[in-house]
């Protein structure tokens, strides 16, 4: 297993410097068939990351730049009258690709946001009564600017819940930044990347992830974590059952990436900040400090 994923991660790390943990989480999210939300200020490499992943996985890649005037039809596509055949014909929008980068999703209006988010949940879109399946695998990486920036429509909790993980990239450290400054342009490097994982292999791995064993002791710990969020006063509302499932799936993917076949509490703890951080609201916006009481107070069983 590790042999399959190692070249993938290594290649990605050669493009995005000094972000091993975030890249691993992004790949983990992909293996768990979840969508990824990257929240950070502009220019830290959100787009590069998604572009790199698409390239390495050999997926059709399309970037949708969300603006405040984007309409659902701009994302999904529209029916256009074909004069020759004298009927309406559906022209699929940019959404019909295997990997979508929804850039600056919180700059668009809620109407456009929900068009994308519905597609993410159902893996299909319905236009004028006809249902069109989206390609598989279908993977959305959305980026959003911190909500305190001007001109943002923050995603409601119900839609944040659709993203399996939220990660923050943050500034590179000094050494990585120097390497970036002296190196070649990232896009030319991306152009040179070769596919490391075929879509078929990916589907295979995704299947294997679901077969990772989770013992009852581990499920006890998982349930204790969920129960804590529901009872504690640290959080406004607890984790939903869907969040619990997400946590387990992500932990399984993480286990798989580490080359083991049974989930450990350590795996849950590793994915917890990015899986639970955006689903729990508390005084802080930083995922690590949001889940800190959970990690400290819930006894590992």
């Amino acid at each position, binding site marked *: 297993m590790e042999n399959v994923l190692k070249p993938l991660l290594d290649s990605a790390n050669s493009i995005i410097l000094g972000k091993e943990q975030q890249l691993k989480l992004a790949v983990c999210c992909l293996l768990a068939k979840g969508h990824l939300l990257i929240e950070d200020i502009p220019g830290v490499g959100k787009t590069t990351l998604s572009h790199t992943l698409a390239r390495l996985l050999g997926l059709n890649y399309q970037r949708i730049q969300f603006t405040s005037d984007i309409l659902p039809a701009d994302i999904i596509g529209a029916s256009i009258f074909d004069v020759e055949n004298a009927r309406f014909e559906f022209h699929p929008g940019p959404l019909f690709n295997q990997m979508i980068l929804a850039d600056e999703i919180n700059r668009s209006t809620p109407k456009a946001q929900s068009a994308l988010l519905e597609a993410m949940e159902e893996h299909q879109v319905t236009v004028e009564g006809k249902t069109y399946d989206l390609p598989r695998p279908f993977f959305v990486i959305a980026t959003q600017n911190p909500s305190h920036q001007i001109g943002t429509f923050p995603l409601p909790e119900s839609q944040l819940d659709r993203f399996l993980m939220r990660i923050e990239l943050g500034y590179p450290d000094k050494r990585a930044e120097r390497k970036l400054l002296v190196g070649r342009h990232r896009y030319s490097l991306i152009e040179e990347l070769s596919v490391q994982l075929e879509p078929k292999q990916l589907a295979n791995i995704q299947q294997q992830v679901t077969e990772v064993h989770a013992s009852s002791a581990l499920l006890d710990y998982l349930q204790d974590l969920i129960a804590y969020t529901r009872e504690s006063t640290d959080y406004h509302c607890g984790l939903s059952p869907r969040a619990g499932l997400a946590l387990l799936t992500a932990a399984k993917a993480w286990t798989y990436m580490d080359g083991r076949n049974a989930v450990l509490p350590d795996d849950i703890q590793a994915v917890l900040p990015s899986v639970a951080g955006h689903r729990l609201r508390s005084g802080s916006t930083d995922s690590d400090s949001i889940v800190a009481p959970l990690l*400290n107070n819930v006894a590992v069983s």
Partner: protein
Amino acid sequence: MVLDVNQRILVFLLVSIGLITLPHINHMPMTVFSFFSLLLIWRFVCVWKTNYLPNKIIILLLVIVAVVLLYTQHKGFLGRDAGTNLFVTALGLKLLEIKKERDLYLISYLAFIVASTQFLYQQSILMAGYILFVCCVLIATLVSINSQKAATVSALKTATLIIFQALPISIVLFVLFPRVEAPRWMLFNHQNTAISGLSDSLEPGSISRLGLSDELVFRVKFAGKIPPPNQRYWRGPVFSWTNGKRWTESKNLFFKKNQHKVTYTGESYQYTLMMEPQDKRWVFALDMPSLYPDSVTKNALYQLINKDNPGKRAAYKITSFSQYNTGDITKTERKDNLQLPSDPSEKIIHLVTQLQGFEAPAERFIQSVLSHFKNENFYYTLTPPLMEENPIETFLFDTRYGFCSHYATAFVYLMRVAGLPARVVAGYQGGEHNKVGGFLEVRQANAHAWAEVWLKNKGWTRFDPTAAIAPERVEQDVNIDLQIATGLVNFSPANINVSRALSWMKSAKQLWSGIDYSWQRWVINYSTVNQSKFLSSLGINNISSMVQWLVASIALITCILAWTIFKTRQTKIAEELILYQRYCKKLARAGVYKKAGETAINFSIRVQHLRPDIAEEVKKITAIYIRLRYEQNLAKEDFILLKNKVASFKA
């Protein structure tokens, strides 16, 4: 505003302390209570503005102020009031000094003591309910202190659960634990808080003042039949001496010679009299008491006197007879009861002559006086005009409006002029039958005065001149609700409209009275004596069997509770976890503690770092444990291996 956890606990604690001390406002000196409130508000503000907290010097000053305040108010620190105030003030001062978790506990326990001091003042069922509620809030505070989670509601829920779990044991302790009577010093100054009822002298207005009060004086539970309303005369102080305006008791109150042998005839009534706390030692027995407990004594005027402290509720078992003959009277007694403030005026002499007072037999004269009241436009009213000078004559000849005391005193005066020994008896008449509790309730508004005339061969005989003018007063019982509502004397069932409006209130009141009566009877009155009575009825006769029962019941309850708790937590602890915990315990003994949220791997890495000497063993044990606990295919060998490794592990 989102409070952080510590602030939430503080707010919780301060609110519960406010609730606990609130009822003390009734009996604490205003200055001390304001001082405490100031401290509480100060602390409350400091929840948000921590830099307003006083420093050591200011706290010292506050302590000095508190000591001075307490000392000036109570001239000492002993006694019920001073002690209670000391506790409350100490609580307030300690609030300003919360530094560690330990202080929070100390304050909570102090608050429990302050809550229980409330019972030194008031023991009603409402107060008990209130104290139980605030204790619940206080326990919820302790619950919050001890758990980072637990929102307000769930903390309260847990507290309620704790109280319910404690209930069986507290009931057993209440019933079986030897009762300790409150020491006398605790009840010092208590008389001041007792209700004021009849006074020891009769003056114009002293009874009508009570006419508007529905305060309970006593309750009576009859063992058998209940006497008819016109027999319900509850005997109080007897007034013989008068200066024309004021009537007081004879000085020969305990003159043994005057205590004649009384012969009882007629219906006998057995009852339990439950007196509310009062400022006098009088026990208002049904006229005429024959058997009574040792704690009371009967004086020469046939009034029952409590030998003990009257400042608390007490129950007396009494037997009374409706008819009696007190026999002869002594010279002193005759002299006492013929006393007149001065020679009667001509008008009086004329009236007595006119009513054949000087020639006709005693009973004929009495009848003619009574019919004089009945026929000559006399009126019965709760608010008679004020008669300052020579009230008896003014009443008889001018105003003719009067309350029972006017009729009784005028009647006695006329008797004495005619040479018949007579005296005024004060007490209560009537009583409302509470259908819920099956007892009579006698209230201040039932206060009454009547007359007694000594007749040859009959002894002291009761005459009620009020009955002549307003027979409803004694036969139908005063309608107290209406009397209080309208300020007029009303006799039920007149004035139906108002009556109906008040009837539901009345039945609610009766229900409440019934509950209160049971509370009094079964809880408050559960004294040493009543306990031993109750327990011997269960066959528990001595201390040793009492202790055996106590221990046995507590053991039983503990077992039942333990069993239910055990049953709800029956999830079996896995064996590999037990072994791992044993390993952790060994490490803990060596000073390395596993944190709650720490995974086995992280812990092992930390231990390896701290103790390189045992790194290998730690690594192995952790690996096997993780295999056993989280992996799919368990191997029996692994389990044995872990067992051996843990057994031989030395930290």
